[in-house]
């Protein structure tokens, strides 16, 4: 652990500019870009783009659901990369464990968004909220195992042991991502196949532009959340190391006052 213990007389900072949390210019810029691209996607997706010949108005969910799914894959992929970097002795540093924690949690958020929007889409187009289709089942499994990963991260004990255990767990879970992505190719499923990632995309014109814009909006949203969440990890580490000393200093200050 890199942080050093604070002086014994240190007390908690009063609310003010010094305790503004995890925000700074970077997060404000990322948040602004995410909000603007998100608003533009909403306008184009809900107002400007035409309805689909087959799916009608339901096609407008394509500007949310695939972007959420891709962002969740990116989150879990980043979690796996950071886990490898932590397990590798030459690159082992607490920052990789923090990155894995942040990306795992944000990935779970986008996985839940994917499952909910997919379920709504399924109800409207297939008539059921849920079916044990290969793609749906694998996405639910992916969400469940990464919720398990977050539970492993919450276990108490030596932080280094916990970080190693979590990293191994993430690496055991990550093979589900490519299997989930290829599920519609490998098996006959109710879920439609890839819309974009193939030689002849099945979407064109303003719909294609809006769909690509939705990926940009979700990407910036992901980056914004990641920066905030990573910094929360930094502050939690500091709190674990310094919080006890701060509490004692506060009690002493109260006692002498």
């Amino acid at each position, binding site marked *: 652990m890199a942080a050093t213990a604070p002086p014994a007389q240190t007390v908690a*900072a009063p609310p003010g500019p*010094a305790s*503004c949390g*995890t925000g700074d210019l970077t997060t404000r810029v990322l948040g602004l870009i995410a909000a603007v691209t998100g608003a533009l996607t909403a306008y184009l997706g809900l107002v400007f783009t035409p309805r689909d010949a087959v799916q009608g108005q339901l096609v407008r*969910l394509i500007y949310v659901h695939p972007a959420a799914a891709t962002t969740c894959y990116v989150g879990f992929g980043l979690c796996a990369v950071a886990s490898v970097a932590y397990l590798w002795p030459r690159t082992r540093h607490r920052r990789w464990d923090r990155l894995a924690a942040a990306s795992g949690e944000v990935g779970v958020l986008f996985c839940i968004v994917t499952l909910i929007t997919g379920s709504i889409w399924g109800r409207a187009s297939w008539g059921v909220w849920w079916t044990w289709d290969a793609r749906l089942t694998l996405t639910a499994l992916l969400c469940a195992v990464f919720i398990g990963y977050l539970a492993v991260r919450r276990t108490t004990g030596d932080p280094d042991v916990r970080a190693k255990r979590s990293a191994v767990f993430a690496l055991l879970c990550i093979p589900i991502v490519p299997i989930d992505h290829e599920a519609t190719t490998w098996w006959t499923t109710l879920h439609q196949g890839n819309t974009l990632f193939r030689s002849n995309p099945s979407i064109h014109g303003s719909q294609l532009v809006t769909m690509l814009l939705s990926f940009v909006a979700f990407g910036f949203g992901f980056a914004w959340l990641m920066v*905030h969440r990573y910094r*929360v990890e930094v502050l*939690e580490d500091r709190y674990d190391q310094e919080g006890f000393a701060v509490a004692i200093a506060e009690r002493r200050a109260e006692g002498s006052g």
Partner: protein
Amino acid sequence: MNYVAAGWSAAIVLIGLYGWRTIRRGRVLARNLPPKDETWR
């Protein structure tokens, strides 16, 4: 169109709530720690 509205609303609400909760968590932690020049401040 109700399903479309439900899908979009669910995504916006979930992401917004998570963002709000994360920022709030950071503010509470920072308030309970001694002042220190974090790299992002």
